[in-house]
């Protein structure tokens, strides 16, 4: 049933108590799939994605290979139990679009030409969903790629923003995604100042859109630092293991 009188903001606080520019708790676990070349679990609050990277490895059958660069394959999938109502297993139209959008972001962050005739397989499984699932997956894949030793321009940093009751906020949860008036998905490389993922729907004036982007870039720094910290700790630990 439509939640008629949903209050998304009260006294400047969001439904889950956050400030407008506050990101949910970020949680990172690395190396959770030992047999993968790289793997990571990334959470924004209750949204949790697990990613693994297999490769770079030789692409078979051969006619799929590209002579001068790697092929990147991406699968974004939501577990049936991750959503309010059970999601039918398998890849639906939304997953196909998001897999394409993620692939495109990843292809523009990797030095593909270093891996001729190879494939880099990136898989993301959303096991718990509370908004921003594609961007959570993007952060998980970024870390998995780094652990797999894939040569990248920079870590890929993802964050969402949106508009709720005339305010621009970052890191949308499910409620804000469903009942807010706009949402933006944003993937960014700090090293090159490049936007590699950008999607928006809703209704925004040009000024609002540009303000949201500037807020995204500013707050993405937090995600960037978390990614780097997690990698540092993991490699530190590895050293002494």
């Amino acid at each position, binding site marked *: 049933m439509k939640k008629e009188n949903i209050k998304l903001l009260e006294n400047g606080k969001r439904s889950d108590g956050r400030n407008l520019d506050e990101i949910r708790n970020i949680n990172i676990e690395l190396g959770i799939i030992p047999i993968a070349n790289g793997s990571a679990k990334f959470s924004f609050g209750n949204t949790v994605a697990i990613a693994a990277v297999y490769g770079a490895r030789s692409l078979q059958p051969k006619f799929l290979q590209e002579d001068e660069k790697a092929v990147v394959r991406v699968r974004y999938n939501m577990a049936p139990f991750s959503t309010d109502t059970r999601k039918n297993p398998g890849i639906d139209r939304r997953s196909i*679009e998001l897999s*394409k959008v993620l692939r495109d972001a990843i292809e523009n962050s990797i030095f593909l030409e270093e891996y001729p005739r190879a494939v880099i397989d990136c898989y993301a499984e959303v096991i718990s969903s509370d908004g921003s699932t594609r961007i959570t997956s993007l952060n998980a894949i970024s870390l998995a790629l780094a652990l797999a030793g894939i040569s990248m321009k920079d870590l890929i940093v993802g964050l969402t923003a949106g508009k709720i009751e005339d305010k621009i906020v970052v890191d949308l949860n499910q409620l804000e995604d469903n009942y807010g008036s706009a949402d933006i998905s944003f993937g960014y*490389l700090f090293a090159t100042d*490049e*936007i590699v993922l*950008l999607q928006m*729907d809703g209704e925004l004036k040009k000024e609002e859109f540009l303000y949201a982007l500037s807020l995204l*870039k500013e707050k993405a720094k937090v995600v960037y630092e978390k990614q780097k910290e997690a990698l540092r700790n993991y490699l530190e630990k590895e050293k002494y293991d």
Partner: protein
Amino acid sequence: MIDERIVLQLLKEGKRLDNRSFLEYRKIEIEKDIIPKAEGSASVKLGNTLVIAGVKVELAQPFPDTPNEGILVVNAEFPPIAHPTFEPGPPNEYAIELARLVDRIIRESKMIELDKLFIEDGKVYGIFVDIHIISNDGNLLDASTLASIAALHSTKIPKYENNSLIRNEFIGNLPVRYKPTYVTIGKINDSYILDLTYDEEQVINDLIAFGIRDDEKIVAVQKLRGKFKFNEIEKLLDLAIDKSKEIRKYL
């Protein structure tokens, strides 16, 4: 087909094979009401690109969370008729992305007053927009959106009686407002280029689409390919808003 290297070389010199300027669209020809059995329809020619959109109005169940609203379904087919590289089979990721982008611009712009499509408890009008690509010479997103918006603006609502729709009697037009349009922008050597042909699409690495409503509100954005510098988004937006007004006139 033309050698990609020639197309690319020309573009780098600021020229296009068909002599257009970088920001110039091909001739846009829109024809409405071309499919007798569809409640709404339009064809759009953009040079050698030809797209037909048809709207069927059917009885439907509302979605559980919006029990008093009509439903909208957008589907796109890239039949093999339209290009030597299209293959028979279910829609691939590009056809799905296209359909979802057109769905999004229609839905997010609120151009259809879905709440006026309620019939009775558990029964609403369903608006099915089907995009049929007939000839692909590039810029399918802009062309398909023009065709879909034109078709929706030509759509009539059939009469409901005795649990079924009377196909040849109408109670009025589909309640629509706004004419949102996508402007897809490519980038090459720091220049922007619009309305790419198929050959140009093969050599352009960076591509982004902005969906703009009549009131200049941005209602949809999709980076389609490549990457953009953070600071160039404003310029891109200005270009898209500007061009959207121009192509909206054809609707």
